[in-house]
């Protein structure tokens, strides 16, 4: 009832950035302190992961730089610590800080790639399913149902086994990330497909789609040019939450022994390795990567939370 649309001619042309800063979404963002902190944490983590080769004191992936004689040095502030290893070293003599920075890179890479893979696959199938409907829809949704019977962990276990079987001469260091991406992504696509299908079924009955059809534009183009941009809102939210979930899943898989190789550890692999040293007093090997992981995932989840509410038009 408070339809406050201004006359088009009155709206002075504002810069894009100015408009973003002026927008309600940006405002709700600034107002929520938790969200701002989460965003800052996420940004710091992502940037430092990206810049790991330049800011990390050591290169934990370069075996020639690792000396086992430095193994299990405690973090600064404890007895027998070494100033060149701020957060101590693990059982191989890897600098924990560098390991965490590089590990974050891998974790984020697996997270982003698998989310991207799942999103692309899910969005495509969801769009087709929702737009075309009928038998195509039925088939895709049945596939989705079968897919749901295999939870992420099962899929990853199986796919990892298969990858090893099929590509026997597998260079794990190079391929592990892709295998993980594939298996985690494969277990996530259903969620996107279902969401996109739902929104597509709503959108396709909207009149702008009919208008495009009346113009004569082919379905394929309508789907991607018209419908797709309009169903991306919820997808963005799912993607954020899934990013966090994918990182955790990767960590869990490394516990089951199908994660990335220990020579190029992700955060999850670091925790898995550190797990063995919890009782023996070398707590920093597990706790520091654990903290990093928890903070990262927590921050991303909080962002997702906020986005879910902020992007939901019904809640404004």
């Amino acid at each position: 009832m408070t339809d406050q649309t201004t006359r088009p001619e009155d709206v002075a042309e504002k810069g894009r950035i100015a408009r973003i800063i002026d927008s309600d979404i940006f405002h709700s963002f600034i107002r929520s302190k938790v969200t701002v902190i989460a965003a800052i944490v996420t940004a710091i983590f992502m940037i430092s992961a990206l810049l790991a080769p330049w800011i990390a004191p050591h290169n934990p992936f370069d075996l020639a730089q690792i000396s086992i004689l430095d193994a299990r040095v405690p973090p600064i502030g404890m007895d027998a610590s070494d100033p060149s290893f701020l957060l101590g070293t693990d059982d191989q003599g890897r600098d924990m800080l560098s390991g965490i920075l590089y590990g974050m890179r891998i974790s984020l890479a697996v997270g982003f790639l698998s989310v991207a893979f799942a999103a692309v696959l899910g969005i495509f199938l969801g769009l087709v399913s929702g737009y075309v409907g009928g038998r195509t829809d039925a088939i895709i949704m049945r596939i989705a149902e079968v897919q749901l019977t295999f939870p992420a962990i099962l899929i990853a276990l199986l796919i990892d086994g298969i990858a090893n079987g099929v590509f026997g001469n597998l260079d794990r260091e190079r391929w592990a990330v892709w295998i993980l991406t594939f298996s985690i992504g494969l277990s996530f696509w259903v969620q996107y497909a279902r969401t996109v299908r739902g929104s597509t079924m709503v959108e396709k009955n909207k009149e702008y789609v009919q208008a495009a059809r009346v113009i004569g534009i082919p379905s394929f183009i309508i789907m991607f040019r018209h419908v797709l941009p309009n169903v991306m809102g919820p997808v963005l939210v799912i993607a954020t939450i899934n990013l966090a979930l994918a990182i955790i899943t990767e960590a869990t898989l490394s516990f089951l022994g199908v994660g990335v190789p220990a020579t190029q550890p992700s955060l999850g692999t670091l925790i898995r390795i550190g797990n063995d040293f919890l009782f023996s007093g070398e707590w920093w090997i597990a706790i520091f990567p654990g903290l990093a992981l928890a903070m990262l995932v927590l921050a991303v989840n909080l962002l997702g939370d906020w986005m879910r509410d902020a992007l939901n038009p019904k809640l404004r």
Partner: protein
Amino acid sequence: MFGFISRRLVMAVVVMFVVALISFTLFRFVGDPINQMVGIETTPEQREALRERLGLNDPIIVQFARFIMGALQFDFGNSYQFKQPVAELIGKRLPATLELSFVSALFALFVGVPMGVYTGLNRHSAISKLFLSVSLIGVSLPTFFIGILLIFVFSVHLQWLPSFGRGDVVALGGWWTTGFLTVSGLKALILPAITLGLFQMTLIMRLIRAEMLEVMRTDYIKFARARGLPSRSINFIHALKNTMVPVITITGLQLGSIIAFAIITETVFQWPGMGLLFLQAVQNVDIPIMAAYLMLTAFIFVTINLAVDILYVVIDPRLRTERSGL
């Protein structure tokens, strides 16, 4: 209603068949079972002979047909490692997993639903924000790590709760064992159930919250307010019931994934359930167990789906009449 259920059942059978087919095709690649069945000194000829006797050299389609024929009679063959019928092995492990899943689902529901309702109704309160943030910790650390930390604190340090196993179990009838009837059995359930349920609890809480927020903005809630109904009645009779349909869908799916996630929890707590059995089977390429487990998971999932569909009908009167009417 009958037609509806029978349609779902037909679909369930199809789904299970597909699961069987996919999993069977995959097993070919997970490793060579023979290495796990014999000692390291066994000669290549002996290994080959064993492979032949197991029918592992037959074309995959023959093996699959054999599997399906057996599965139809609930015969999933003998475990390679245990030399026992798989159906029996899984049958013995089923109660452990189901009890654990049940308790953790209860935990997730009984903690998650009230917290979800509260945070949904009091969107801007400080406690809501606290609930939301704290609950996220459950999804911010990998399950196995949470499990180990719990063991570290409650078993090793405080020595309050056992670190592994089911405690003493009581046999009920010929085929069920329960940990519910003994003190040690109940104590043994606590840590694994929390570890397993934490994730689902967070999910359910957030889901209920989101649905509550939406339902609270609907016209019928506004109308209920305009009629002067007390908030208790609005929140619980009108709002909560209306959030149930989506919540049931997701919760149903989550129940399925609880059973899958039990693999991790059971490994950490040495819980003698199916998940542990499956993980050992994967490590030892025990194909019959893997196949039967996947079939069972599929079956449980399909059953839950069916139950969810029926529950919809119970909750939502619109679905009841649309089938007979129109």
